[in-house]
């Protein structure tokens, strides 16, 4: 019977019901897509960093884990000091540049010989390394997304480059230019953002890091095995704060819309509430009806929101093929939970107000 009353009530106000459902769907979609995008990017970047084939990432002091896109603050000469550490086989300095104009592109400025020494070399689909300062190496995903091939021009960070080679994706970045070009573009000469370090024995990572810490006590030294997982984990304060903010904003949207919807509903239906009270309906009965009604709105909104998140993820990937949206089951659960919570919070005051109505006055309400 409750179900019938709730459905009849919702159907009697189709526009408001639809808007409320859409707001909850928006809440869920916002959470899922933004979280999916952040974790997708960090996971994917992590995977690529892992895929470099190095054993240790050597970063400047206080560097963040995310993306390793710091300014090029270390003197490139550190390379030789790192090499001196026992167990180190090869060191590749990298200068990173970031292009955020379409999606998020990381460009590595590298010395091909040193980079190959650490990574074991690229798998070349076409062409080869840059031979001039206006040449660039791109990965196959980028080439496919931008529909370019060797000899074509691409514009990166307001520079026109000629594609000199296309490589298999998965080695640190999608775009590679020469160290010299990177230095010219950033104006930072003889500096590096990070060093990839290859060891003689990969199993000695922790021992070697221990040795390095003695020489470079303040620097960021991270083993690269399981790096992607680390990027995904909750041990990333900056990303967590970002996601928390998004969730908070999304929940606020849900709370406000549900509140407004339920508030106007109970005001509009004051008389009906009076009727139910005159029939012997208790306060709890009234509160229950309002909560159940908002729960129905939330549930439909959740289903719609999850569905549209997947659609939007597809769309994002279609427009920006280099981006990945990771919609995980645990975040679907979390987003649904947040949507329900906002339904509860949003209906709290309206339901209390409805229950507190004096039955006689409610019946007299026009």
């Amino acid at each position, binding site marked *: 019977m409750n179900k*019938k009353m709730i459905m009849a009530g919702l159907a009697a106000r189709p526009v408001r019901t639809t808007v409320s459902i859409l707001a909850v769907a928006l809440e869920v979609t916002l959470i899922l897509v933004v979280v999916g995008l952040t974790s997708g990017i960090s996971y994917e970047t992590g995977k690529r960093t892992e895929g470099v084939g190095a054993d240790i990432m050597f970063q400047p002091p206080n560097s963040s884990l995310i993306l390793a896109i710091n300014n090029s603050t270390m003197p490139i000469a550190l390379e030789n000091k790192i090499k001196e550490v026992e167990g180190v086989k090869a060191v590749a300095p990298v200068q990173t540049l970031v292009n955020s104009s379409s999606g998020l592109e990381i460009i590595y400025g590298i010395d091909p010989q040193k980079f190959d020494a650490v990574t074991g070399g690229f798998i070349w689909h076409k062409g080869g390394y840059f031979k001039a300062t206006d040449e660039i190496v791109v990965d196959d995903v980028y080439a496919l997304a931008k529909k370019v091939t060797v000899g074509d021009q691409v514009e990166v960070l307001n520079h026109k480059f000629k594609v000199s080679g296309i490589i298999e994706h998965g080695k640190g970045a999608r775009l590679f230019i020469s160290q010299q070009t990177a230095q010219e573009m950033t104006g930072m000469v003889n500096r590096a953002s990070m060093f990839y370090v290859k060891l003689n024995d990969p199993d000695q990572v922790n021992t070697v890091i221990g040795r390095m810490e003695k020489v470079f006590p303040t620097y960021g030294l991270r083993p690269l095995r399981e790096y992607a997982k680390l990027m995904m984990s909750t041990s990333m304060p900056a990303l967590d704060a970002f996601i928390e903010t998004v969730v908070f904003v999304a929940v606020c949207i849900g709370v406000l819309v549900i509140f407004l919807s339920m508030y106007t509903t109970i005001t509009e239906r004051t008389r009906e509430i009076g*009727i139910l009270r*005159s*029939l*012997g309906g*208790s306060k709890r009965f009234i509160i229950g009806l309002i909560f159940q009604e908002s729960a129905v709105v939330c549930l439909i909104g959740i289903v719609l929101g999850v569905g549209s998140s997947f659609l939007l993820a597809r769309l994002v990937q279609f427009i920006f093929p280099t981006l990945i949206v990771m919609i995980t089951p645990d975040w679907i659960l979390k987003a649904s939970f947040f949507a329900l919570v906002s339904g509860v919070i949003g209906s709290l005051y309206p339901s209390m107000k409805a229950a507190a109505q004096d039955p006689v006055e409610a019946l007299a309400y026009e």
Partner: protein
Amino acid sequence: MKNLLETIDLRKTYKIGKIEVEALQGVNLRIREGELVAVMGPSGCGKSTLMHLLGAMARPTAGKVLIDGDDIAGMNDGQLTEVRRNKIGFVFQKFNLLPTLTAGDNIAVARHIHGRGGPAHDQHLEEILQMLMIQDKMGRRPSELSGGEQQRVAIARSVANRPAILLADEPTGSLDTKNSEIVLNMFRELNRRFRQTIILVTHNPELVIYTDRLIEMRDGVIVSDNDPFPEDTESELAQPARSV
């Protein structure tokens, strides 16, 4: 005979800001099981206020309202609600059907709130629907019914749970003469056939012929009452032998 309703020096004062309106100024009355009572009086004399108190919709300012022996004066909201749910049926001037539900569902809601399990219809309800001539209107919404039909649905809803007391505040106030007659005949029928105790407020002196007893009010007090059992003056309260 059992006193179903009794008021003792019942007073109700409304406060509008600093102004106090004494809607009821000491009402004493007793209504027994199976009575059909009309309450009349000029507008503003306190008829609706009295009905709200008799129906446990509000608490008195002073005095007592005994509903089936229980004084509602000291009851909290939950207890008042329970009295309404278990003992009272209301019929209003404005029908007060739930607009989004069909006639049948309006009745079902009342039964649902009452907590009656079992089938949606039982023999008693079937009989009442037949008597009210609305069995074939159950699938319609209030907006698809005439005023007279709506009021008959409201009556069916009010007695669906077999309340001890049926209170009707100007039930014919929104109806034309013909429908008023039909509705009043229904009340009399309910009273005769099921011994339903009914108190109804009316403005129309002509309608009083449908009732057994007439209570006239003026300015918050009863000015005349042709109580058919005046000798039965002992109050419920003065009968300690009877367990309340």
